[in-house]
């Protein structure tokens, strides 16, 4: 099934089409001539649905379409104007030149379409000055945000002497080698083949590094073979290895080899990835001094190294709320390793299909719980959470509603307004709902009701506006969502009054019956509504048909008379 873009009612009837047709005539008659022209124009336009960018649209589809139709609503671009928009443009030359590199050919695909994907409407240069105002703002943004998420290679263009060398700079970065755009990486294979020397202990004299505070014991890798894991673990397997940071925090720098080897990185190839693949710059001892002031800073710094191989995930995160928070200076915002861990990274998606593995629901929820423990506690008790924790692969885990890597901030008007579609992904799926005996009528009945109609209209007319019409979660709850049967459920009338009163403070005990509880009108449940609906469903065609018949008879009569008059004149 396809996820519905907008809340729509599935009750098309001849009457409705008839009504729309007549309304068209009515509009033409009553409104200005321009209105008529516009109406006709919109028939030729692509389906309305594509025009409005939903928060659920991936950036890929939303942007090009908005551009193609030229109908981008004035407010819409701001939604996708992420601070990271400008970045991939800067990234592309880097990644492209890196692609033919010999060191890790299998890991850096960075396909060309991704480059074009984000250089669409917000890049002033490409659009040929179509939006000069935006282009002007885009340039400073590019420079401003090339901080923490840039891989070290791109953060330091060739001609910036003022920059303090970072620990993540590869040691050879000072060399003005033949590759001006790209700082040589430790992953580069050697230009001159030398015997695969393991490690050599250098002479006592200090060599080069600005970090050498102690002249003795500098160990460098004079050959081209980078240190392997075994080499690093010869120290870091020590269970009591700690490091004190300037903040006073003491962190463990012990690596659990067993844990690493069971991780997806540890299982790569014959022997797993080398440590320095992520811990770039750590290819000498004593290690370069850590610049991070606190454990959190260190975590954030280290997570930037993920981009080297997982650039596609970084691209996905362009619109992610965590990324935006981090960029705004909130150090608590999650970075890669907060969810995926540093050394125990596990595979979460199917290697061939890229789809999430079916049995990771509880693990993935636990990841989010690291920072969102209170929400997790609510969720774990809910009908969804308890099912996930019992291993039910159908029930939604955090990511099913919030997304991964493109997590949206749930406090925006747009998120609220479009949240029914999140529920619809499962609750409009007849096959899935049949398994649990849940009706999929909930959306049609919601849209048919005043609340849902309001929401569906706002989705298309003011997609960013925070509105107070209730969405699913207002009545059913969010993370603490309960089944609609059983104690404490909203379906019990006393509870329903309380639910209504949250928005309708004056509501009395009769009031909840004004809500038809997601049931279509029926003689058993709502006889008045059923009779009224039936009366007009039958009455309108009958009465209008009768009137029309009379009109037709009059038309016939007038034609007969005109013919007679003509004969009379002849």
């Amino acid at each position, binding site marked *: 099934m396809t996820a519905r873009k907008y809340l729509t009612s599935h009750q098309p009837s001849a009457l409705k089409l008839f009504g729309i047709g007549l309304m068209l005539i009515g509009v033409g008659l009553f409104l200005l001539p321009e209105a008529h022209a516009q109406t006709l124009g919109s028939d030729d336009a692509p389906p309305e649905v594509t025009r409005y960018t939903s928060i659920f649209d991936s950036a890929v589809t939303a942007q090009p379409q908005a551009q193609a139709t030229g109908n981008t609503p004035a407010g819409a671009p701001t939604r996708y104007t992420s601070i990271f928009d400008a970045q991939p443009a800067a990234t592309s030359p880097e990644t492209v030149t890196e692609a033919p590199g010999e060191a890790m050919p299998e890991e850096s695909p960075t396909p060309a379409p991704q480059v074009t994907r984000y250089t669409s409407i917000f890049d002033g240069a490409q659009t040929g000055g179509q939006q000069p105002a935006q282009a002007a703002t885009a340039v400073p943004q590019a420079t401003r945000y090339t901080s923490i998420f840039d891989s070290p290679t791109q953060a330091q263009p060739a001609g910036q002497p003022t920059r303090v060398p970072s620990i993540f700079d590869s040691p050879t970065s000072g060399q003005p080698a033949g590759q001006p755009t790209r700082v040589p990486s430790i992953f580069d294979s050697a230009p001159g083949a030398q015997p695969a020397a393991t490690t050599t202990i250098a002479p006592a004299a200090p060599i080069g590094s600005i970090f050498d505070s102690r002249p003795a014991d500098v160990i460098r890798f004079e050959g081209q073979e980078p240190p392997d894991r075994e080499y690093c673990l010869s120290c870091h397997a020590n269970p009591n290895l700690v490091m004190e940071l300037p903040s006073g925090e003491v962190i463990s720098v012990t690596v659990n080899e067993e844990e690493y080897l069971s991780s997806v990185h540890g299982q790569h190839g014959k022997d797993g990835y080398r440590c320095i693949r992520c811990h770039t710059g750590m290819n000498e001892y004593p290690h370069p001094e850590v610049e991070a002031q606190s454990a959190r800073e260190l975590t954030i710094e280290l997570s930037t190294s993920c981009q080297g191989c997982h650039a596609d995930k970084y691209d996905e995160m362009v619109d992610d709320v965590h990324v935006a928070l981090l960029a705004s200076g909130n150090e608590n915002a999650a970075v890669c390793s907060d969810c995926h861990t540093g050394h125990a990274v596990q595979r979460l998606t199917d290697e061939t299909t890229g789809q999430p593995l079916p049995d990771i629901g509880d693990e993935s929820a636990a990841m989010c719980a690291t920072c969102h423990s*209170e929400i997790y506690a609510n969720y774990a008790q809910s009908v969804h959470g308890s099912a996930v924790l019992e291993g039910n692969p159908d029930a939604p885990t955090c990511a099913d509603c919030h997304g991964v890597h493109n997590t949206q901030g749930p406090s925006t008007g747009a998120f609220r307004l479009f949240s029914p579609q999140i529920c619809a992904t499962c609750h409009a799926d007849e096959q899935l709902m049949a398994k649990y005996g849940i009706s999929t009528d909930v959306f049609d009945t919601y849209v048919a009701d005043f609340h849902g109609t309001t929401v569906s209209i706002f989705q298309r007319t003011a997609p960013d506006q925070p509105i107070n019409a209730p969405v699913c979660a*207002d009545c059913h709850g969010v993370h603490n969502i309960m089944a609609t049967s059983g104690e404490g459920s909203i379906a019990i009338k006393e509870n329903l009054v309380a639910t209504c009163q949250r928005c309708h403070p004056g509501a009395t005990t009769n009031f909840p019956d004004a809500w038809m509880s997601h049931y279509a009108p029926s003689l058993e449940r709502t006889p008045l509504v059923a009779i009224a609906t039936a009366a007009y469903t039958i009455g309108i065609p009958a009465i209008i048909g009768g009137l029309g018949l009379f009109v037709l008879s009059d038309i016939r009569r007038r034609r007969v008379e005109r013919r007679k008059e003509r004969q009379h004149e002849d």
Partner: protein
Amino acid sequence: MKTETQRKYFRFPLAYRIEHWVMVASFTTLALTGLVQKFAQSDISIWIINALGGLTNVRIIHRIGATVLILEAIYHVGLLGYNLFVRRYSPDLLLTREDLRNALHTFQYNLGWRKERPKQGRYTFEEKFEYFAIIWGTIVMIVTGFILWNPIAATSVLPGEFVPAAKAVHSGEALLAVLAIIVWHMYHVHIRKFNKSMFTGYLDAEDMLEEHPLELEALNQPVEPEPDPDRPRRRRVFLTVYGIVAAVLVAVVAYLITFEQTAIETIEPIETVNVFAPLPPEPVQIVSFDRPLNSWEDGVGELFATRCTFCHGARMPLSGLNLTNYDAAILGGTNLPAITPNDPENSGIITKLRSGDHPAVLTDEDLAGLEAWIKAGAPRE
């Protein structure tokens, strides 16, 4: 004869015409702003809603239209009363059996089953039908509209189900009214023949003859109006009574417009929870050796093997220190003597670890055990 057909007959005074156009304005406004909500899924509806400045505006406009229509209805009741009670007009607007027969006969005439078109008076059955449809529709729409406008007040008296039922009726009746106007009114007054009487007030003789032959006859035989000395009194009485009634009704309308605030205007938070509530980080674990350190053979050697020889081993003795065997350990590193028997103060192992300037650490107990071992002469066995 020619002058006769060109003659115009006065049909609607200005007040009637103004009333009609007020009605047209409010009806059109209501139909437009209402049907876009009824057919909310339609692209045209969305276009109109956008053109009117959004759904909130549409709903405000709808209520303004409704208020105008209600005020117009109150005025119309007064007009009817005045015409009947003060002017003593005959109630020729009422539907009679004659009208039903006229309708049937007209239909039969249209189909050619009857030779003559029935002769009708001032108001034809077509006009009467439309008039009463509007009277009926307006009452239905005002009642159901009130319930929808004030659902909390309504359900304090009526069962809750009346609200969705009112919505079904309001929406069905709206569609019926609009379609009736388009099919019936538009055809008879604009398409069949463009009737200008609602613009100019006059209808020409040809149209009069065709549509209102009985009225034409009456108009052509004018009768002297009888003197009516009682009229000023009736007028006074009526205006007093109606004035009071109308004032009350208008006051009620004014009150009801702002009577109920159905819903709060803020957005209530769905859940109150700390979004960022991180689990406490795992404390750094220093693994204790936790065994007696009596001699190199009994404890110390193994402590070094599991804690120190990662870096101070045979393969890569950092600082030249090799702690894999007793002799090498006693030999010490390049900078400091590692172990000076009996003298922990001069033993690099102890001072370095105590200084905190060493990446690997031992628990205080292990360090104390090591110190005791050195104090005891660092015995091999």
